[in-house]
């Protein structure tokens, strides 16, 4: 390494050059350094440069508060919603029931073999992510990603106890002052409380919430619940409280992928260089002619939670949270210039320096294709869900042996049947054979009952052994050694019916 200065020193030196003085009358220039995406010689390893995001005020900050309130409420409260499913099933609206292998979601219930619905949901989620990204960049990262939401919450807590950017920096300069200790202590304690609540809410998705809550308080909950609360407490505290932007920049793959998702017509948070340059401090009475609107106050840098300078253009570290828009708009209002020096804009508009007006094109191939794919997958999923029967029968034909010859020359085949009752109450089913003339059906354990009524518990499956017998004549009448036929299962009230085709195998001819 030719440079002898450390990375953080370089950042500080580079920053010092631009600090000092006013950016415009009454507007102090921020000393916020460009932590990430700056241009300095780089060592192999670099210590983290702490980011002290300043509080922003404005439309997007308000939107982010609302999104945070809504998403956190959903996360913490959903396990407590009830959904009546009758006396045999849990009444928790959203429940991932591992012991009985069921996933309950309000009116939906997913069995393990129906996991393709979850796959479909993931496909939909991915496509929606692609669609939103191609329309408006990393809106997911900026507003709804759990990392963003919890980090935002942790920063709010930090600001409550330690004050805004400047106070926090001052506290960090006097690490052992009593004030620093209690303010930091209160911050970390509150972070831990939030982290415990996050882990605590997580486990409620996997067991009856009120019961588990009581068990947790009495310390007689299953060990696994405490393990997962511990795990989520640790990750929430570390990732949301401590690591913050490091997660987005170094751990998350999405910043690397997003470059392939956006195009010249995607709305990205952009600094309108054509309007802002040439930047520089603005003095009282100075004309705005012949210069840019950017007064180089670095407020956009000060509010940035990842510590970048948006004026360097679109970059990997930008999570597109829009706080720099709020910060800049506030300044533009103060200096009496139009808002929108930093705004959601497209690369195409930036290149034409805004001469085409604010053109925004939604009928791009990728937007249309993603929308069409979402519509197709959604329609398939919806149709499959609507047509899903609440009774099903699976048939496994014995393979060893394929058939049994009886003393009178008749042929018997054995089958294992699984009757699935997806109703919320026990049901009785009639079993019959269709399409095999002369077939005699017997069920193990029901030899004495001619009706073959099989009871299947509520929301469960019943495995039964069935034998189908053809006498010598009936078997000889079959056109070939093997014949296709169906098992038909009908609920006692006749309302539900399921059919499964299988084969009857006789001796080779």
């Amino acid at each position, binding site marked *: 390494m030719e440079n002898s200065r450390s990375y953080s020193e370089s950042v500080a030196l580079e920053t010092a050059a631009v600090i000092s003085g006013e950016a415009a009358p009454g507007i102090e220039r921020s000393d916020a350094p460009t932590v990430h995406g700056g241009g300095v010689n780089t060592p192999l390893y*670099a210590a983290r440069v702490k980011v002290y995001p300043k509080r922003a005020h404005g439309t997007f900050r308000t939107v982010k508060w609302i999104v945070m309130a809504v998403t956190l409420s959903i996360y913490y409260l959903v396990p407590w919603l009830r959904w009546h499913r009758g006396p045999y099933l849990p009444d928790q609206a959203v429940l991932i029931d591992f012991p009985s292998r069921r996933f309950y979601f309000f009116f939906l219930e997913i069995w393990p073999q129906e996991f393709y619905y979850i796959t479909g949901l993931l496909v939909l989620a991915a496509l929606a992510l692609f669609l939103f990204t191609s329309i408006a960049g990393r809106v997911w990262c900026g507003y709804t990603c759990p990392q963003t939401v919890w980090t935002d919450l942790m920063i709010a807590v930090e600001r409550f106890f330690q004050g805004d950017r400047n106070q926090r920096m001052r506290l960090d300069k006097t690490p052992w002052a009593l004030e620093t200790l209690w303010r930091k202590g209160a911050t970390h304690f509150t972070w831990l409380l939030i982290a415990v609540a996050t882990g605590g809410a997580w486990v409620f998705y996997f067991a009856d919430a009120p019961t588990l809550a009581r068990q947790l308080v009495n310390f007689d909950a299953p060990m696994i619940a405490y393990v997962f609360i511990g795990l989520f407490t640790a990750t929430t505290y570390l990732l949301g409280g401590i690591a913050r932007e490091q997660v987005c920049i170094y751990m998350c793959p999405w910043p690397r992928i997003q470059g392939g998702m956006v195009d010249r017509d995607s709305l990205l948070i952009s600094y309108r260089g054509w309007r802002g340059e040439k930047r520089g401090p603005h003095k009282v009475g100075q004309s705005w002619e012949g210069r840019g609107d950017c007064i180089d106050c670095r407020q956009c840098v000060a509010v940035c939670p990842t510590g970048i300078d948006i004026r360097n253009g679109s970059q990997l570290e930008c999570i597109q949270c829009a706080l720099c828009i709020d910060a800049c708009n506030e300044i533009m209002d103060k200096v009496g210039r139009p808002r929108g020096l930093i705004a959601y804009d497209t690369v195409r508009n930036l290149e034409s320096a805004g001469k085409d007006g604010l053109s925004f094109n939604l009928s791009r191939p990728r937007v249309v294709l993603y929308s069409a794919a979402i519509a197709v997958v959604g329609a398939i999923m919806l149709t499959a869900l609507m047509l899903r029967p609440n009774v099903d029968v699976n048939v496994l034909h014995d393979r060893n042996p394929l058939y*049994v010859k009886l003393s009178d020359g008749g042929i018997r085949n054995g089958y294992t049947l699984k009757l699935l009752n997806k109703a919320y109450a026990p049901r009785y089913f009639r079993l019959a054979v269709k399409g095999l003339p002369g077939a005699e059906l017997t069920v193990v*354990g029901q030899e004495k009952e001619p009706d073959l009524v099989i009871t299947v518990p509520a929301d469960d499956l019943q495995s039964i*052994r069935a034998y189908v017998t053809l006498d010598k004549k009936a078997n000889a009448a079959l056109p070939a050694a093997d014949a296709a036929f169906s098992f038909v299962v009908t609920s006692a009230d006749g309302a539900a019916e399921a059919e499964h085709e299988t084969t009857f195998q006789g001796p080779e001819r």
Partner: protein
Amino acid sequence: MAMSKRDAVSEPETTGHEWDGIQELNKPLPKWWLYVFYATVLWSIGYWLLMPSWPLLSGYTKGLLGYSQREKVASQLEAARAAKAEYRDRVAASDLAAINADPELLRFALAGGEAAFGDNCAPCHGRGAQGAFGYPNLRDDSWLWSGTLDGIQQTIMHGIRADDPKTRSGAMPAFGKSGLLSAAQINDVAEYVLSLSGGSHDPQAAERGAEIFAKNCVACHGPQAKGNHEFGAPDLTDELWLYSGDKATIVTTVDGGRGGVMPTWVGRLDPETIKELAIYVHALGGGE
């Protein structure tokens, strides 16, 4: 190493590597990333100390926690046995008919019986209980001794022609080898046996064979050749054969006799398992 240079657009240093015009920026790795790597190294050392890890010339390092997968499996098997105890007790306390009539207990017995059958009975009777030459098919409706629940249990417990006072005995004598019948007589009686189940045969020889059969065979196989469970004598009129039904095999059977052996299982399997096996075999399709 490629020469590092500065990317004209975004300023930071590049590694000098270029693929199709895409350059790799040279960015520092965060320090904490390095520390996480060191932490994983420390973790592995802790793991070596606590868990079984290093192979030695004989054996391996056991680790301070004394963890053993073998013991883990043993304890899991013990837990599984304990979980089954309630049903095993009910099986022990109920007679076979009662188990067969209780759907819950029946399902438990069938599952246990299937596992025990695979472990103990499949080598002779086949994995699907379909039998083989000389080993009865347990799925059909023809039984040498008994196809009732109690009869099957008796057979499993004490075996057939086994070293057990309560075993089922009775054997097909070696009519030829012991000189009771001549080769010609054996030929005739084989023709008669073929005729009983409608096989192709020589009617004159069969007629002669009928007399020989009446003198020598009815004691066990019965006057109608329908067999007798008392002696394990098979029904010769049906379509099933323990040994093959072609003439050569029938001649061999009459000439040299037959006496397949089934071992006793009492003492080797616990009573509950034998009950489960009886239930399972009975439910294979041929139970009486």
